[in-house]
């Protein structure tokens, strides 16, 4: 034990100056969900098995592959079951995007999909009459 203690005295400082210095995350690390609507068929298996109801899939037009995925980052438990369920590999967990700090909870709700689809969906949501039919 004493040998250990003495050796530690002459060691370099181990503390990192985060956020200026960062440890690279492992390849398999499960960070935020990503979603690619072009491969999606809208089967909703991901939504069905999500243990924390963190994802909602809105189908605007199934034939034209127009989907919007509403992702609640704050509810997600980062288990990766949705990615396992997806037969078309259209979703996965990123190992790059994992820093979750925000001043407003709203920032934790993310919409994935083609730009015009998300826009259309949000406009629909804003209009109170249509919002009811969406759900």
């Amino acid at each position, binding site marked *: *034990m004493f040998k*250990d203690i003495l050796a530690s005295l002459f060691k370099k400082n181990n503390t990192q100056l985060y956020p200026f210095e960062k440890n690279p995350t492992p*390849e*398999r*690390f499960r960070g935020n969900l990503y979603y690619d609507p072009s491969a999606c068929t809208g089967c909703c298996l991901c939504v069905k*098995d999500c*243990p924390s109801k963190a994802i909602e899939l809105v189908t605007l037009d199934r034939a034209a592959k127009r989907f919007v995925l509403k992702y609640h980052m704050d509810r997600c438990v*980062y288990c*990766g*079951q949705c990615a396992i369920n997806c037969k078309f590999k259209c979703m996965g967990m990123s190992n790059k995007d994992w820093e979750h700090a925000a001043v407003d909870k709203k920032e934790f709700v993310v919409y994935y999909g083609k730009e015009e689809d998300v826009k259309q969906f949000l406009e629909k949501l804003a209009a109170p009459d249509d919002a009811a039919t969406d759900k």
Partner: protein
Amino acid sequence: MNIEQTLQTAEKILAPWNKDTLRPESNRMDMVVQTDELRAATNALHDAHWGYLSAITGLDLGVESGQLEALYHFCSGPVVVSLRVRVPRENTYLPSIADILPPATFFERELSETLGFKIEGLDESDRLFIPDDWPSDVYPLRSDFAVEQAAPVSGSRIDEIPEQGMLTGNTFVIPIGPQHPALKEPGHFQFTVDGEIVTGAKMRLGYAHRGIEKAAESRSWYQNLYLFERVCGICSHTHAMAYCMGVEKLAQVEAPPRAHAIRELVAGLERIHSHLLWLGVAAHEAGFDTLFMYSWRDRETVMNLLEQVTGNRVNYSANVLGGVKCEVGPEQAAKIKEGLDYLETRIRHYLEVVTTDAMFLNRTRGIGTITAAEAEKFGLLGPTARASGLMRDIRIEAPYGAYVRYPVSLVTRTNGDLEARCEVRLEELLVSCFAIRAILDNMPEGPLTARMPRKIPAGETIARVEAPRGELLYFIKSNGGETPARIHVRTPSLCNWVSVLEKAVGRQLADVPMLIAGMDPCFSCNDRVVTVLRTDKKEAWSWKQLREYGIEYYRR
């Protein structure tokens, strides 16, 4: 003795009280017993030294049937014999067996609070894991329970100031917790001390109760996997593994051999991280913070390995129903081996420290000694039992999954003190390292998952797994739907508590933190207990009296 013989022995012992025998699985036998004959049947098993009481599961058979059922699971090696007792809903009286088998105290409490069994001689005004402001006569696990019934009731115990302070003469009650009672998890202890010597111990847990068993009934089989993984943050993999094994058994799906091997591998790594964490906590409680810092520094190695293999440091989510998610290829294998090389040298070093360091030995040697007979009586499990010379390890007694192919050897000690518990845990890690290497060198080829149905066939099963703290038991019942009918979890810490309370009596108060740490308790796992031991019901001071006394005392 093989499974069939063991079962026959039990059948012979229980023959006079047995009303009906069921064989749900090859290693299990269910026997229907009358309420008033339960004690006699338990006594017979106890007198014949057949197995030990592992858990009591309560079931609500539905409003239509008008019955509740209690299952007393007795285990001996791989064999499980369950005594099934049915009681009508109007009269849920059950005789207590806690005087025959002390661990039943905890299980009976649980039955009484969650399902409303009226256990003979149980003080129902005390609560164990249900909050103090929970209404009486509302039982969360009954099938006719509605959330509206659970509205908090004011004016209950919660507003009263707990009894503490001086009782008589030199006798004091020292409250410890709920914040930081030797560990950074919530639990409340009341130690009655006479001078420095503890004369009584009492505890209240349940501060982290989350109602997981109830929540499971409204979630699908797939969603529940992640729910049960979160029963415990330290042994999350063993919980998920036990759940998966149980559900796979019900669905009659066999996970591929490669999946089993990876499950054992992750379980081995988890054991290393859990025991090193424990070593740090124990060292910290003993006042040996250098050892605490170093063991936690080295624990980072295994945490990084777990993160690289599974993708997360805790709640690894390595399991899916029917197999595992994470592949262990040559790249991971090389990293794990490299990490193990370092860990093994460090573990050997710590083993030397805990057996030679004079300061540490003063706090461990000959303290909290539990003899094998006592361990048997208290129903201890895991390393705590093995340190007392009990041969209790599910990985060896009833090998499951890959433990058949990559066995581990049993580590025991006979002195049963805190030192022995340190040694058992550390030596076990060397065994785990060895097993992990064996798996990496002989990994079976093949797929990682087998296909699982969405609906699980109706039936009941019991899955037993050796968690770092001892035997973990899952009782799973399916009605054939997409959600389970009932899942009951009995965690090892629950069985080990009694050793702390019993052993604290007669020791110095300063030994108490070490005793609590010595059994490696996990509060979030077992939040469901309260028990009272030898509490003197002498003249008690009210909070007001005590306060006045205190003010008067310091005025002098």
